[in-house]
């Protein structure tokens, strides 16, 4: 009995002593040397909270979802605070009907690269409509948002150039910089002074990459200051509006429009997977830029083009965004409600001013237990912990949607506040 207890304690310490970052690097003489230690750790980590990742849904990512619990296998009906479906578009009847009609007409996939046989009339239609929505000359489509950053950055930057990225940049930006073989310099998060310091004295081609809304903290880029610094140093600016296109600005064009800096920003990138609830990425700009990226965006033309039914659904979603600005108004009303209620309950959401809200637990040891309790009480959300965020900055990440009712949001606040109090996270 005692030996079994000791063994259990030893195994627990294996789990708590390590995290994903420990299994990335490992020298040796066999590329699979890390598999054994990783699997041993993961076997412990999964029942201790990692099961909360990738729990399968068996319904649309609407405000309420059916989720199979990763530990018990029981299917639960939960209030959804995790999906990116910020405007509730992915399951709208018009969107589904458009996809159904397209699958009847075109079949399932594009069956080819966009530069060979994979471009259909509706791809051109969607690109033209996105460009019009963003008030740009042209747009180019990518199979994913990840592919858009990787393909765009590596299409315009080369070895010998310098890319300046926010330290909290999405992996797709970092991977784009790696593929470009440019020198990559990271500046402190949302800190124009540090950017200025790092731009100083750098010669040659320079690209500053920022995000409209940062996906782990929900804070908005201090774009006016970033633009000022970048312009003074002769650097071009790319803004990734994955979490802000279709939401921010008077016309929903994004954070650049929100700040009145649409023209000052050189390159505008967005995704279809967040606010439109679909999949894919795009870059907007001048015709020359788009033609160039079409020629050199390897992540795009070495991939199959977006599936036609998806493209048809995206076009229908884009029409909804264009014709129903009240959806954005509802979203911002919901965001205001949640911000107010979290503040009243003493819940810390950091510097978030967007629909992405990190509920800061700031306790790596407790965050999984907190998330588990919250799911058991009817909410679907995920914990985020190191190395995705700094040590002790663990959090529950919430996505507010225009589709949520006030009752939904109040239920979420009540459950979260109750669990955080029980766990001593807030008073």
């Amino acid at each position: 009995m005692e030996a079994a207890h000791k063994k259990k304690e030893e195994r627990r310490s294996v789990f708590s002593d390590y995290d994903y970052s420990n299994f990335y690097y490992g020298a040796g003489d066999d590329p699979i040397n890390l598999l054994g230690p990783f699997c041993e750790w993961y076997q412990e980590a999964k029942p201790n909270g990692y099961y909360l990742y990738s729990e399968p849904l068996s319904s649309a990512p609407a405000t309420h979802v059916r989720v199979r619990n990763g530990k018990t296998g029981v299917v639960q009906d939960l209030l959804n605070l995790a999906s990116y479906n910020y405007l509730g578009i992915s399951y709208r009847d018009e969107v589904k009907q458009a996809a159904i009609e397209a699958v009847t007409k075109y079949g399932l996939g594009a069956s080819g690269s966009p530069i060979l046989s994979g471009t259909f009339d509706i791809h051109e239609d969607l690109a033209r409509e996105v460009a019009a929505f963003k008030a740009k000359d042209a747009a180019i489509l990518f199979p994913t948002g990840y592919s858009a950053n990787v393909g765009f950055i590596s299409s315009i930057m080369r070895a010998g150039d310098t890319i300046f990225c926010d330290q909290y940049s999405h992996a797709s930006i970092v991977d784009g910089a790696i593929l470009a073989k440019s020198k990559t310099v990271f500046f402190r998060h949302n800190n124009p002074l540090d950017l200025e310091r790092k731009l100083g004295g750098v010669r040659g081609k320079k690209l500053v990459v920022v995000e409209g809304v940062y996906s782990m903290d929900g804070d908005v880029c201090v774009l006016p200051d970033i633009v000022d610094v970048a312009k003074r140093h002769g650097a071009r600016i790319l803004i990734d509006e994955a979490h802000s296109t279709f939401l921010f600005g008077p016309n929903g064009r994004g954070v650049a429009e929100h700040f009145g800096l649409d023209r000052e920003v050189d390159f505008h990138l967005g995704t279809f997977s967040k606010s439109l609830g679909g999949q894919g990425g795009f870059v907007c700009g001048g015709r020359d830029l788009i033609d160039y990226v079409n020629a050199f965006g390897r992540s795009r033309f070495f991939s199959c083009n977006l599936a036609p039914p998806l493209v048809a659904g995206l076009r229908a979603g884009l029409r909804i965004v264009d014709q129903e600005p009240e959806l954005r108004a509802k979203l911002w009303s919901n965001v205001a409600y949640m911000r107010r209620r979290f503040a009243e309950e003493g819940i810390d959401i950091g510097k978030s001013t967007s629909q992405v809200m990190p509920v800061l637990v700031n306790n790596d040891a407790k965050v999984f237990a907190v998330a588990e309790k919250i799911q058991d009480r009817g909410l679907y959300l995920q914990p985020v912990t190191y190395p995705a965020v700094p040590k002790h900055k663990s959090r529950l990440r919430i996505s507010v949607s225009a589709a949520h009712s006030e009752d939904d949001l109040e239920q979420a606040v009540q459950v979260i506040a109750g669990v955080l109090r029980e766990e001593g996270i807030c008073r």
Partner: protein
Amino acid sequence: MSLTRYGYANAISGFFEFPTDNARHILPAGLEPVELHHGTSIFSMTVFDFTESEVGAYGEAVMSVIVVPLVKPGERLPKSAFYPYLVATTTKAARDHAIERWHLPHWMEDVDIRFEPQGNRLTAKVAADGAPVAEMTIGDYSWNPVSHLYQSFMRDGDKGYLANITMEGEQSEHEEETGRVRLHEHPFNKDLVISEVYDVPFREIWMRNGAQTFQPLIQLETA
């Protein structure tokens, strides 16, 4: 050879971003720097206040690059690995011992190391030749007992060595970015491009009332 134990009152470490180009300049062939971000590696400074050892009590400053650990099937996975490119001690006895036993590269004069506590922060000041070379301040967070395995890689001429080191004691570890290092222009810091070392540690580790235990040295095959 048996285990070699060094008891300490305090051991503080700051982990700082610096360019991978600088890391590669320091590292010998065959060792890879761990990158925090693409193009950004990790410089670490650790200052010990050893209270007991085979050579008595002494202070030690260790300047390292964080490197990829060596992973072997069936063996305990190290938390991380480092390449100490410069070690400085307050006594000749400690220096001679570490050079002879662990092949660690040393600053060949005694240095002055002072610890200055202030509230929940601790500053270590290192001076060589009567001039300041580095001051590092870190703060605490929450304290937990730990026993962690690390690897230290050493080179001595054309020979390579690995030491498995267990650090035990009370540990505070955080990424609050509240610490600071000041590196002075001094031959002690000649391997670093000081202007490119970010002066705020992204991670701070403070260990106290513990022991650092070396397993017998392993000689590695080198190219």
